[in-house]
């Protein structure tokens, strides 16, 4: 994609084909010759891990879909029959359900890495926004998928989340009825959620292609946050990045396997092993862990419509990050103040996640409100002002200098 390729097929057939469709050259320039900054650290391996997890989810999902029945009377049973009677069905399902959590762990690390090193700044704004879109699509896909086993938390989670749309003034109720395909979450809801849950991963895959394309146009950011200036600053993708990514991918699989084989239900809810019952509301309706910070923001706002807007706004604001952060220096390594605010923001997000799992009462509500205000203040107040007032450290002249400097 970048014209870094000097790819020449060896065989006559290869040359004949390459003249008509230069796909070999495309692969070669994107994944072999593609120059990557030589100072990338291990936090840069999560892009590859995410591609791998998307593949795992799609493959396990396609096989699960062969055994799953999207009907309110049969969905729970069909999932249980996957667990009991399908050969290695338990493995497929646990890979898929825990895979979703691993996908989110990886994406959160990927996002925080981007924030820490200023990867969203010029010339990578479009790359960043495509990432935010992928993240939104992931959240939608995860939510839809959690509905499919048709347990208690599936049903009530779907009820709560779809009810957000009833906050839209005037047409809210109509929109919710339209989403449900009825007057409550029911069989039409399950059918369309299943259809969309199968569709969205392929949309994600499409946006991932754009994301990678944009990455290969602008090149990777790096821990120094300065652009490569000469060939001394980069190394070819293969073998350097390939072997490093492979190592981390396998290491990440150890974490993945720990949950799949040893505690497959740790990240889920016990209530989802009870078949959905519209007549019985669970004591606590809690979303999956990866939504908890946003759930806390939703509940922190006393007004329903404003709460929903705050929740969606908390994600949408990420898309504006390239312009909210006014600093010219990318990497937190050279931004002593930003570094502290970054970790404070990280702690606030963890705190919101913890509060999202707590009942909305007493001190928890107060804390949620304080942290919600800080969450938005980080973007609207802290980042714009830091760019103006922060005294940054001097940047190294080149990536290779920064590497040699850290060695000395």
């Amino acid at each position, binding site marked *: 994609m970048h014209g870094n390729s000097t790819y020449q097929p060896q065989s006559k057939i290869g040359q004949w084909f390459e003249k008509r469709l230069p796909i070999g050259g495309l692969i070669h320039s994107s994944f072999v010759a593609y120059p990557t900054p030589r100072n990338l650290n291990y936090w840069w391996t999560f892009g590859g891990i995410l591609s791998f997890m998307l593949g795992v989810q799609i493959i396990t999902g396609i096989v699960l879909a062969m055994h799953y029945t999207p009907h309110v009377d049969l969905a729970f049973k069909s999932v249980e029959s996957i667990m*009991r009677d399908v050969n290695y069905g338990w493995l497929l399902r646990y890979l898929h359900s825990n895979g979703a959590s691993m996908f989110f762990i990886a994406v959160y690390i990927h996002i925080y890495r981007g924030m820490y090193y200023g990867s969203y700044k010029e010339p990578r704004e479009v790359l960043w926004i495509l990432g935010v879109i992928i993240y939104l699509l992931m959240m939608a896909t995860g939510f839809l998928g959690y509905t499919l086993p048709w347990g208690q938390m599936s049903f009530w989670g779907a009820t709560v989340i779809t009810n957000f749309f009833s906050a839209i003034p005037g047409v809210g109720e109509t929109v919710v009825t339209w989403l449900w395909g009825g007057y409550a979450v029911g069989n039409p809801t399950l059918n369309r959620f299943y259809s969309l849950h199968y569709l969205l991963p392929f949309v994600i895959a499409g946006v991932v292609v754009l994301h990678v394309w944009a990455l290969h146009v602008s090149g990777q950011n790096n821990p120094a946050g300065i652009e490569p200036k000469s060939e001394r600053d980069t190394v070819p993708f293969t073998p*350097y990045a390939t072997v490093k990514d*492979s190592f981390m991918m396998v290491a990440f699989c*150890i974490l993945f396997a720990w949950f799949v084989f040893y505690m497959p*239900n740790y990240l889920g809810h016990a209530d989802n092993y009870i078949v959905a019952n519209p007549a019985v509301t669970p004591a606590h309706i809690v979303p999956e862990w990866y939504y908890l910070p946003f759930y806390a923001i939703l509940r922190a706002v006393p007004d329903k419509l404003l709460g929903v807007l705050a929740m969606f706004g908390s994600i949408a604001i990420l898309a504006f990050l390239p312009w909210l952060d006014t600093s010219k220096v990318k990497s937190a390594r050279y931004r002593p103040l930003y570094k502290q605010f970054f970790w404070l923001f990280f702690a606030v997000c963890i705190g919101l996640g913890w509060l999202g799992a707590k009942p909305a009462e007493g001190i928890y509500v107060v804390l949620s409100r304080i942290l919600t205000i800080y969450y938005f203040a980080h973007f609207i107040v802290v980042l714009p002002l830091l760019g103006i007032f922060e005294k940054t450290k001097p940047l190294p002249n080149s990536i290779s200098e920064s590497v040699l400097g850290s060695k000395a």
Partner: protein
Amino acid sequence: MTTQRILIALTLAASLSASGAAHAAEGAPVPPAQKWSFAGPFGKYDQGQLQRGFKIYKEVCASCHAMSLVSFRNLAEPGGPGFSAAQAAAVASEYKIKDLDDKGEVIERPGRPADAFPAPFANDRAAAAANGGVTPPDLSTMAKARTYERGFPWFVIDIFTQYQEQGPDYITALLLGYKNPPKDFVLPPGGNYNEYFPGHVIAMPPPLSDGQVTYDDGAPETVAQYAKDVTAFMMWAAEPHLVQRKRIGFQVMIFLIVLSGLLYFTKKKVWSAVH
């Protein structure tokens, strides 16, 4: 593993003594942690225990509770109670299963290994009518469908100790948790006081009593033993492939650790030219 778990637990309990409050917040005491043969990375079901548990299920629980996702053939599958195929068929044949004959007439025939455990009532409404208005829940996934709040820092420690037996611990505690209500407690008619049940009022009367079920293997015929045995059986019913899962998991772990080690040194070699 267990001693290690206890050590970690004690250390953290000492440093964060506030954790007890998080448990008590729900109003019920924390179910005591039992020793389960199926806990931990090398956990396996105890065949004798599953067979005893099945006996209790059959003679006590099954008179009110369905277990409709489990079939007689499962009793003979590897990793389970260890019945032979003939034994499972014999157990099945003790039951009468409703079916249709060639003319479409409803008949009752002896059970076959492929049949699911028959439910004690024709439908949920009949079950509710016979049990004071409350349908006794199906026990197929019960051991995974119940839990209790672990609270911070336990839910973090659990990732490392692999503690995930909240369900079985809760069920055993519940079965042993019948008590006389406190003096000021108003027990509604048809309710029974149980220390561990949320709200303390449970419709199910104490199901177990000492000597109720005869064991042939010399295990004590006490409520405490019954409760543990039937809980283990419910865990197997909810997770029949647990033994296979943990066995494969260990193989996968070894493979991944070796592969990541090899890749790490490959990476070092490849990058040595650059650094």
